């Protein structure tokens, strides 16, 4: 990770990647390193200033390493600024032209500091140093998914093909945040796309705020009210600072902002009261990096609002189990919304987007619990049929579970999201079945489940002209199983590897059988389908959105269909607010706002 630029440190990338390595291992002066580390501690205790520290060692470091890349006071201050939030971010953007991106600078500083024993600085109770330390951890290629604190970027994967248009997310969000009518932080629409080539997939868009990494809304804000939290990348509005100029709404390419044109329908007291037994009031929250800010729930009058991705949940106000969840995600019946840390490869959205067919399958199959299975299987025979019968599973269910496991590889169960939980359920269920005696790695069993070719004990491992390529779209899993050969690698260069493996390992001894990942993937795709595309919205706008969509990407000519709604109409749904009132949803907010317009002419320019 840190190896993206070898030039920064004379010790080279290996050293950067191995920060645990002691100075002794190097050709460099250990004493100097130790002395510096000691003084670094003094700096953290406030006995020595950074500037003095630098002064003291500048010469020696130059002599020793040929260059001095340790954090200078300037750089240190910059890092501190960074951590203060928007301040640093904006400053860094301003002088950032032609310079390395912020993260790179931080990385380098982190690695550079560690290389000379300055890791001690990380103990200073100060955001700036924490960020450096966090960066440091990230550099550590051990890749602990929990990573450093600064390495969280909340985001979503939204499966537009799984969305059934029920608008549950819309009402859940409005209810959670006590929004006025028409303030659809979460909005779902259907569109026609005359420019698009015909596609079987539905034209639907689920549209929360994209929580852009390079958010133009933040950049244009004249007050810093619109800001990105350093701790988790959420783009929020400080309701106490915003002056209501609406420039953020103008600059956002996605049209996700909602201004509070009049007094909101529900008071802050009512909201606070409703959340009394919570750890906060669902309005103000502290992400641990800055001070308490009012960033959640509906905005007060004259202030901008938009989808927040539930910061009070992420900050633990609603309990630990709510961290890493959003109201919309929870409400979505088909699990079309996956929320999680986009910087973590084993988070829900990343795992899901990485292999949507697998994600969809996981969301749909309901693996029995291991205990249940053990109970059910007691006394049953060990063959496949008996097991299925006793466990009340059908062949497909078991095959899908195994396919999930096979395609999961080493990352199976990694992470702490829902996908990982489901993976663990699958692992446990399969383990229970295996411990009952059914060998799930047995080629015969797998072949029966369409996950492997039939074992062929008679034929030598020659090439066979009738080889069927599992990749072949026309190949039907059944046909394939009937075909009695597994040695097609010579004919099919493209899938040489996988099949080659099968064949080599092939043995009467089932333990050594390598599962056929391609067949497993094929099974998952057959069951759950693959999305038409995998895209981020308006990426050409340079916003770096943090939502990955799966499904049909709206083209430049896409237009919302009328009437609005998705089969379910906005006017037919309602949501409840903290004051107990049930509110009807409205899709076009203008209809609501027109009531307050003085001298509404009923015409439009």
């Amino acid at each position: 990770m840190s190896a993206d630029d070898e030039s920064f440190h004379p010790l080279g990338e290996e050293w950067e990647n191995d920060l645990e390595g002691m100075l002794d291992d190097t050709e460099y002066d250990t004493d100097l390193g130790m002395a510096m580390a000691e003084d670094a501690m003094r700096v953290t205790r406030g006995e020595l200033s950074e500037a003095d520290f630098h002064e003291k060692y500048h010469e020696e470091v130059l002599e020793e390493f040929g260059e001095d890349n340790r954090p200078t006071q300037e750089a240190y201050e910059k890092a501190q600024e960074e951590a203060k939030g928007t301040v640093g971010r904006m400053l860094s953007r301003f002088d950032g032209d032609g310079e390395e991106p912020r993260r790179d600078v931080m990385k380098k500083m982190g690695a550079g500091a560690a290389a000379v024993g300055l890791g001690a600085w990380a103990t200073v109770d100060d955001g700036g140093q924490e960020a450096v330390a966090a960066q440091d951890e990230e550099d550590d290629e051990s890749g602990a998914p929990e990573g450093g604190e600064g390495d969280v970027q909340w985001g979503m994967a939204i499966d537009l093909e799984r969305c059934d248009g029920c608008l549950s997310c819309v009402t859940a969000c409005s209810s959670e945040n006590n929004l006025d009518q028409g303030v659809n932080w979460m909005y779902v629409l259907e569109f026609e796309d005359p420019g698009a080539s015909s596609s079987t997939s539905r034209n639907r868009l689920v549209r929360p705020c994209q929580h852009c990494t390079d958010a133009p809304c933040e950049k244009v804000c004249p007050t810093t009210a619109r800001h990105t939290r350093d701790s988790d990348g959420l783009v929020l509005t400080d309701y106490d600072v915003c002056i209501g100029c609406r420039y953020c709404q103008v600059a956002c390419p996605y049209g996700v902002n909602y201004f509070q044109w009049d007094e909101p329908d529900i008071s802050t007291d009512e909201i606070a009261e409703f959340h009394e037994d919570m750890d906060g009031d669902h309005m103000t929250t502290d992400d641990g990096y800055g001070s308490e800010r009012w960033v959640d729930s509906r905005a007060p009058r004259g202030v901008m609002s938009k989808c927040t991705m539930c910061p009070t949940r992420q900050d633990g106000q609603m309990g630990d189990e709510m961290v890493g969840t959003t109201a919309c995600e929870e409400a979505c019946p088909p699990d079309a919304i996956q929320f999680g840390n986009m910087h973590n490869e084993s988070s829900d959205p990343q795992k899901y987007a990485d292999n949507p067919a697998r994600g969809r399958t996981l969301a749909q199959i309901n693996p029995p619990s291991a205990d249940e299975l053990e109970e059910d299987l007691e006394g049953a025979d060990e063959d496949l049929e008996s097991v299925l019968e006793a466990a009340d599973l059908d062949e497909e269910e078991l095959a899908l579970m195994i396919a999930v496991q096979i395609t999961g590889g080493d990352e199976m169960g990694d992470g702490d999201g829902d996908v990982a939980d489901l993976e663990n359920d699958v692992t446990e269920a399969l383990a229970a079945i295996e411990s009952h005696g059914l060998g799930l790695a047995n080629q015969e069993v797998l072949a029966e489940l369409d996950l492997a070719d039939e074992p062929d004990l008679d034929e030598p491992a020659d090439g066979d002209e009738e080889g069927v390529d599992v990749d072949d779209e026309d190949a039907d899993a059944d046909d394939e199983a009937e075909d009695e050969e597994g040695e097609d690698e010579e004919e099919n260069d493209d899938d040489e590897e996988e099949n080659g493996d099968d064949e080599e390992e092939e043995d009467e001894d089932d333990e050594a059988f390598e599962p056929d990942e391609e067949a497993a993937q094929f099974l998952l795709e057959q069951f759950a389908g693959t999305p038409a595309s995998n895209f981020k919205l308006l990426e050409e706008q340079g916003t770096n959105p943090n939502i990955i969509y799966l499904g049909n990407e709206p083209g430049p000519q896409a237009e919302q269909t009328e009437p609005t709604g998705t089969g379910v109409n906005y006017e037919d749904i309602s949501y409840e607010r903290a004051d107990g009132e049930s509110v009807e949803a409205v899709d076009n907010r203008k209809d609501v706002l027109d009531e307050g317009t003085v001298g509404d002419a009923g015409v439009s320019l």
Partner: protein
Amino acid sequence: MSTKSPTEADILRPIQNVSKTYFIMFAVAALALGAFLIGWAYQLQQGLVVTGLSDWGSGGGVTWGLYIGAFIWWVGIAHGGIILSAAVRLLGMDRYMPVARLAELLTLAGLSAAGFYILVHMGRPDRMVTSVLGHYHITVNNSPLVWDVTVITAYFVLTATYLALTIRYDVTRLRDQLPDRFDPVYDGLTLGYSEKEDQIIDRMVWWVALAIIIMAPLLLHGGVIPWLFAVLPNYPGWFGAVQGPQFLTIALTSAISGVILLSAAFRWAYDWDHIITDDIFRGLLLWLGFFCLLFLWLQLQQLTAGSFHPTVDHGAATASKFSHPLYVGPILGVLGVLGFIFATTIRPSLFTKLRAMIAGVIVLTATLLEKLYFVLSGFWYPTFSIYEATPGDYFPSAIEISSLLGTIGLVVLFFLAVAKVIPVVELHAIEHLRGDHGHGHEPEHEPVEESTKQPEVEA
């Protein structure tokens, strides 16, 4: 032109007399402003819901409307005014000296109206100081809106200084004819004046003028104001490098029109035919024609680039221009004015002062409507044009419309008030008109200086 010779008495006439017309105008202007202030108070109480605005996107409206359109219109007038006056001073266009101060005053008035609009447009104007100034050091690096506030403030200060410097000369010399009730004002204006400074002031004014001209394309209507829009890639109608020059032409056309109307009003009110001569109107009209031409030329650039083989979003934004009355109307208006001005150069007899005024009104209306269309069309034709079922409906509410009348009232009141305190035509201009258009400055000063020495001593 006129046989009358301009005198100090001429330029003192507005200060020394009040007429019934004056009171009527004052009352009408005050009424317009008052009506809007009441509307604004109601808006402050109710929120911006009283406007015809809504959110763009699923909100089905536009989030910026007449307030912002009128804001840039006023800033344009203001910036054009100061550029005009700076050009007069810098390039020695002595012919226009009688209207230079009017242009400067128009700048102050226009900036005030624009600044007022910023407040009116905000959801929480009460936080202007804490939120904007409190984070200024950060946001000034990013936010075009902060750049705007900065340059508007800077230009207000600059213009006021500029004006104050040139006024010292006049006030000192005319002091004993000026009404006593404003003595504190005059004392303040002439604080520490000595004749020796005249030359230095002249040079300072020249440098300030140079600075204004140099910065005009960058910091005025050729720069930060259009950047408010031109830097946003998600609106094809806004995005791009042409907005700087385009805005500058709009600023200059509207400012010249404003100056034409103001000059005509003052000339009519105070019989200044021999000071603000027909010659000045002819000249201003020619300049107006020149900038109208530039305005249309740059519009043409946009139409061509947006319709030849445009991207989908850009194509949609441009297509609307060919049919929307809010765009077609202004363009035809400006085209008509250009045609008329062109015709007057061929047949000078076509020129009348009234026609020049009508041209001014047409251009000012056209630029206002074009600005309004410009702002609205951004939201009507964004790159992400998917929200077709909730399009950007908008019609300015009664309060928004009254804001326009209110700010015009504000500007009229400003002139009515200022005209009673200081000479709106500078003494230099009179001296110049009496002289022989050459280097007549020095000898011309003599009589005035004599007459002003006494008040100097008294003060």
